[in-house]
Structure formats: structure tokens, C-alpha cells
């Protein structure tokens, strides 16, 4: 063995060893990931790809699928009847998403209120979180009593006490969607409050102390310290909120079935109607594709526009 050879071996071997170790580690990682990848592939990834393809077929169960190109999209965007109801469900979805900013404001306000050392604050934190733990089906049934259209419904009892005319709530095409939004805010804020509280508590206290010495008032502190440093949390809540409102289903199915007069038929519910009531799998898949593009565009906008304003402290 010449001197150069042994030198080369000595210099190469550590990197070779490292490579081997890396390969070992990644093999182990893949092995541990395999079960979840498999479940994800079979129950999420494959169906997603499958419905991407099915959207281009005419497929009315139990008949076999027939390739029809863009005809499903033609129904959704061009056809007199189809485009009218589809367009309405898109608008309804956007309307329903009005709940997100409302939810963010309300939960942030409550989180700031709860972010103090007060006796009994734990009880309030628990109370606000409780709706999040309750099943949406149970909540919907209880809220149907609150929203009962007769004069013995709880909200109507309150209206009568204040001398106001009673309302039909969920049975009124104008009020139905606001009713669902209010329910969504009430139900969703518990989770948001907890996330906001965590965000608030991670803001260094010395910033507030320093600003106080500089003469900042409460509003100035909130606007110039709390809000900017909380922006990653707000961004996260915004994204979660968008996803949650796009997939809202249980409350609509239980409380309004998309009515009255289609006033609460969101994209997700519209998809459900075509897939599981009319059994038009192809058309429902086309709606799913549109919903996917919708979410994609919204998420891109969020990342492009909103992330510029997000400060990672």
C-alpha cells in the first residue's frame, strides 16, 4: 500500500461513513413513516387524484363512468340552471367566510381580556373553550331550539321581552346565513382564544415595560406591540378559519339542509347534495376540483399578501 493510497483512504472514509449513517437514518425514517404514508395514500391522496379524474366523466351511480371532457364544468359555469345554483353556492361560501374576521376580532378581544392575572380567570378560559369540545351535531340541535321560529324559541323570547317583533331565524332566507355565522363564531372562538393566549404570552414583557416608561398608553401598546408580534398567530388562525369554513357541513346538514331557498348551500354542501343525494359522482367531483382551485388561490393570496405583514418576532 503506497503512502498516497492510505492517505486517500483516511480522508475518504469519514465522509463515506457519514453517508452510510445518513442512508441508515433515512431508511429508518421511511420505515417509521410508512404506515401513515400508506394510510394517507390510500384514504386521502388516491381519492383526491381519483376525483380529479372523475370530474371529467359523466358518472351517475350505479351506471358506469363515461368520459365527457369538460361537460361537467360547462354545467357549473355555462348552463342556465347549473350556473345559477353553482354561482349561488360560491357566493354563499364567501358570505359564510365573513365569520372569519368576526371570529378573529372577538377571540382576540376575549384573549386579551383573559390574559391577566385575575382570580377565577381559569374558569373563564375553560368556559370559553367548552364549545370547541362539544360535538357539532349536539350543538346544532341545541341551537335549533335557541333559533326556534315560534315565540317560545329562546331568542324570540328575548326579542319579545325587549318589545321587538319575533323572527324566523333559520327559516328566513335572509337571516339563515347570519344565524350560522353567529353559531360558527361562538363555536370556533374557544380554540382561537387558546391559540391567541399562547401567542400573547410569548410576547416578551420587557417591551411593554419599556413602552410604558416611554409614555405609551394601552391602545398604543396594543396597536404597536401586541398586534404586530401576534401576527404569526393571527395568520395561522386565519388559515385554519378559512379551511374550517370551507369544510363546514354538520351544522348546515342538521339545521337548514342548505335552505331556505338555497340560502345556506355552501360549496361543500352543494358537493354533498350532488354526490350523495343525486348520486352524480362526476359532477360532484367537478365541484371538488373547483373547490380545490378555490382553496389554492385563497391560500396563495394569503401567503403573498398577508405574509408580508406578518412579523416573526
Amino acid at each position: 500500500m503506497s503512502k498516497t493510497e492510505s492517505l486517500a483512504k483516511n480522508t475518504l472514509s469519514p465522509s463515506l461513513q457519514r453517508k452510510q449513517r445518513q442512508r441508515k437514518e433515512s431508511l429508518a425514517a421511511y420505515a417509521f413513516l410508512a404506515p401513515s404514508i400508506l394510510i394517507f395514500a390510500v384514504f386521502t391522496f388516491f381519492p383526491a387524484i381519483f376525483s380529479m379524474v372523475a370530474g371529467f366523466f359523466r358518472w351517475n351511480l350505479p351506471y358506469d363512468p363515461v368520459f365527457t371532457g369538460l361537460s361537467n364544468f360547462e354545467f357549473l359555469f355555462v348552463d342556465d340552471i347549473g350556473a345559477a345554483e353553482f354561482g349561488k353556492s360560491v357566493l354563499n361560501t364567501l358570505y359564510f367566510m365573513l365569520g372569519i374576521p368576526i371570529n378573529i376580532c372577538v377571540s382576540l378581544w376575549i384573549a386579551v381580556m383573559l390574559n391577566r392575572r385575575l382570580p377565577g380567570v381559569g374558569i373563564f378560559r375553560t368556559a370559553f373553550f367548552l364549545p370547541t369540545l362539544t360535538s357539532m351535531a349536539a350543538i346544532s340541535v341545541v341551537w335549533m331550539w335557541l333559533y326556534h321560529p315560534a315565540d317560545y324559541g329562546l331568542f324570540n323570547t328575548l326579542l319579545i321581552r325587549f318589545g321587538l317583533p319575533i323572527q324566523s331565524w333559520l327559516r328566513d332566507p335572509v337571516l339563515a346565513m347570519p344565524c350560522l355565522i353567529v353559531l360558527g363564531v361562538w363555536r370556533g372562538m374557544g380554540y382561537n382564544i387558546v391559540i391567541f393566549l399562547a401567542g400573547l404570552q410569548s410576547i416578551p414583557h420587557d417591551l411593554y415595560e419599556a413602552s410604558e416608561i416611554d409614555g405609551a398608553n394601552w391602545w398604543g401598546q396594543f396597536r404597536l406591540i401586541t398586534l404586530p408580534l401576534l401576527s404569526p398567530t393571527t395568520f395561522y388562525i386565519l388559515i385554519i378559519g378559512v379551511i374550517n369554513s370551507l369544510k363546514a357541513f354538520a351544522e348546515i346538514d342538521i339545521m337548514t339542509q342548505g335552505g331556505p331557498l338555497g340560502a345556506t348551500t355552501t360549496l361543500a354542501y352543494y358537493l354533498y347534495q350532488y354526490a350523495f343525494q343525486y348520486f352524480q359522482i362526476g359532477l360532484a367531483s367537478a365541484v371538488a376540483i373547483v373547490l380545490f382551485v378555490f382553496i389554492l388561490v385563497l391560500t396563495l393570496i394569503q401567503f403573498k399578501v398577508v405574509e408580508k405583514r406578518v412579523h416573526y418576532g
Partner: protein
Amino acid sequence: MTKILKAIVLIAALSSVMLVGCGGDANSNSAGTIDKDGHITIEFWYALGGNSGEVVEELVNQFNQSQTEITVIGTYQGGYASSMAKLWNALSAKTPPAVAQIGGAPLVGNTGAIIPITDFLNQSGDFDRDDIWEVFWDYNSAGGQIWSMPFNHSVPMLFYNRDLFISAGLDPDQPPETWDEVIQYGQLLTTDTDDNGEIDQWGFNTKDDTHWYLSTMFMENGVEIVNSDETEVLYTSPEAVEMLTLWGDFVHKHKIMPPNQHDESKGDFLAGKVGMLLMSSSNVPGTIQDAPFDVGVAMFPTIAGKERVVPVGGASLIILDHDNELIKQAAWTFIKYMANQESSLYLSTHTGYLPIYKAALEWPEMQSYLEDNHRSEEAILQLEYAESIPLFSALGSSDAQLRVAIEAIELGTSSPQEVLDHAKEVVDGVLLDNLQDQ
């Protein structure tokens, strides 16, 4: 390294087991199996939950105990809509059960997935078609074939609160017979009980399957729902508009029914807040049990001077096609048992469903049952006026469109003619579109 390799192999093995589990075997095991001794086991999917579901299970048990060659395994698949969805999916995946209970069975007929009952009825001499009401055979037929075996059927009825009748000065033994009387009684029953300026007791309402009651009113007024070629619906005629106008008048003109509160109506009726309610006869025992007041059950109101006619609803039993003749015969043996007189008696005396036999009222067991449960009798008597409501390929969207039409009329957003024209446009489109599949 060897440890990691082992782990990978193990996971790969587990994964393949999972995948196999997902795939299933297309034809052999889903509907039924035959073991070495020739014992046949078949799958039966049913669609009734709660008390009615237990009664179906009990009938399956009775069948299993009545003989030794066949074992039936019954599985609840959710309500009619959910059962239908699961059956469609199972047919798509080629894993259907041997027998299923579904509503609107003839609609599955032209898919080729089920064997017409006609085939079996013709070959077996032990089942006399004439014993069963003709309307049930009609309801289960399409294109000259009987596709399904009548099983659990019901008719729409007028339920009323006898206590409220007495308070309103009405005779609880004289329920309204015509729509004019419904309006007249309804006005007496509609009041503001707590004097707060808001009506809180309504004279009249219907359960949330509003399309069924409107269809009944259409039939009463001689409206054909669909043409014989099934290419267009016919409920834009003046007779149909007249009935939807009457419906709107309940809300706006006579003010005996609250607008668009059908989801709440049964709860309100049970709470004593509704005087008269249209519901399926399948609700008779349950309502009597749940209501804290004396419930009355009357025949569906009619148009003065016109003949009474009501549709039948409910579900039937179908035999899914199968390669194995023995399994098909086992399925036939089973549904023949489920529809025989003893089973029909058991079903109709333990649930709100009707006996399908013409002679039911003469059976001694039925007579003694009706002595204690006289309110179940009206529905059976009403069978004499029952006619089959047409089943056609766009029935699902037609029903949905009729419900929306009713909503629009009750909320006062358009006129009966407009909403029915719109419904026709949508449903005719679906009918035309469906032709492509057939």
C-alpha cells in the same frame, strides 16, 4: 442494519395486509356463502332504525330459526337515503348484498343489478299475488316487471290533537274530511295562547317531507305527475297550480300554518302547539306514545266533491343478481318469508307500517290488536283508496324541486305558476339527461 431491514419487511407485510383488506374480493363473499355441508349464509341490508329496526331484526331471527338451510345476516345501513347511497356504491364496487330493503326499488330495476320478483312469482305456486293489495305491486313495478317485494309501506294521514279540538270547541270524533274543513277548523285552532301578540298555536302543519303531501294533493285533483314516456313532468297544469295555491293560502290567506317551519312541526305537534299535522301513518304508534295528549288519526283530507286518493310510500325488498343460483333461491325464500302473512302481521302490529294483505282486517290477531290500538285502523282502511305514485328516474330531483317550490310559496317569493314552471324546467332537464345512461 438488520434491525431496520426487519422493521421495513414487517411494515411492508402489514401494509400489504391492509391493502388486501381494502380491496376485498369482488364477487364471492359479499352477497353470500355456501359451506361444505351446503348451508347457505346470505347478507341482508335493511334501512329501518330504532324500534322498527329491532322489529326487522326480530323477523330475521324468526326466519333463521324457522329452518336450518339458510342463515341471514342482517345489517342496518342507515335510513333510506343512506342505504341507497351504500347500495349504489356497493354495486359500483361489485360487492352488493344478496337482499336489500330500499325505497323506490323499481328505480334500480333498469340498472340490471336486481332480479325482478316476477321471475320468482311465476315459478312458485305457493305465493298468491292476489292476496296482496294491487297498489303495492304497482308501487314495486316498472316497465311491466315487478322489481321488488312489498314490505314496509305507509300512507299519509292527518294527525290531530284531540285535547286542542275540545278546547277550540270542536268535536274530536269529527275530524275534518275536506280542505275547506281543515281551513275552518284550523282557524279555530290558531291562537295566541299567552296574549303576547304572536301566534304560538297553529291550526295546521305538515312534516318536512312536504313533497309527499303536495303530490297527494296533486293526485286528488287529477294531476298526472309525469307523462307515460317519462320525458316530462306534468305539474304545471292549472289543477296543480290550484293545489299549490291552496297550500300557499294556508299560510298567507287563512293563516293557519306558519311559513316554512316543517322541520320543527313534529316537535311542535308533540308539544301541543299544532292542532293538525300531516304525517306518514308509520308515525302512529310512536306519536301516540310520545304525545302527552290524546292523539287523533284521520284519513288524509280531500277536495270537496272529489274522490279520495292517497299514495303509498315506504320500502321494499330486492334480490340482487348473483352468479350462484342457490344464493338467489335462498334470497327468494327469505323475502317470501319476510312478506308472508305472519311477518306482515308482526310488522304491522309492532311498528306503524301497514299490513300488505287485503284480508288483514279479518285476521283475528289483527282484530284483537286493533281493539287496543284503534287508531291504527284508519290507515289500513285508507288502503282502499291508495294508488301508486309514479316512480321515475328523476324522482329524487323532482321531490327536491317540489320542496323548494313549497318553500318559495310559503315565503312568498314567487307565484305558484312560476315555481312550478321552474321545477319542471329543472326536472325535465334531469329526465332528458338520464336518457343518456339508459
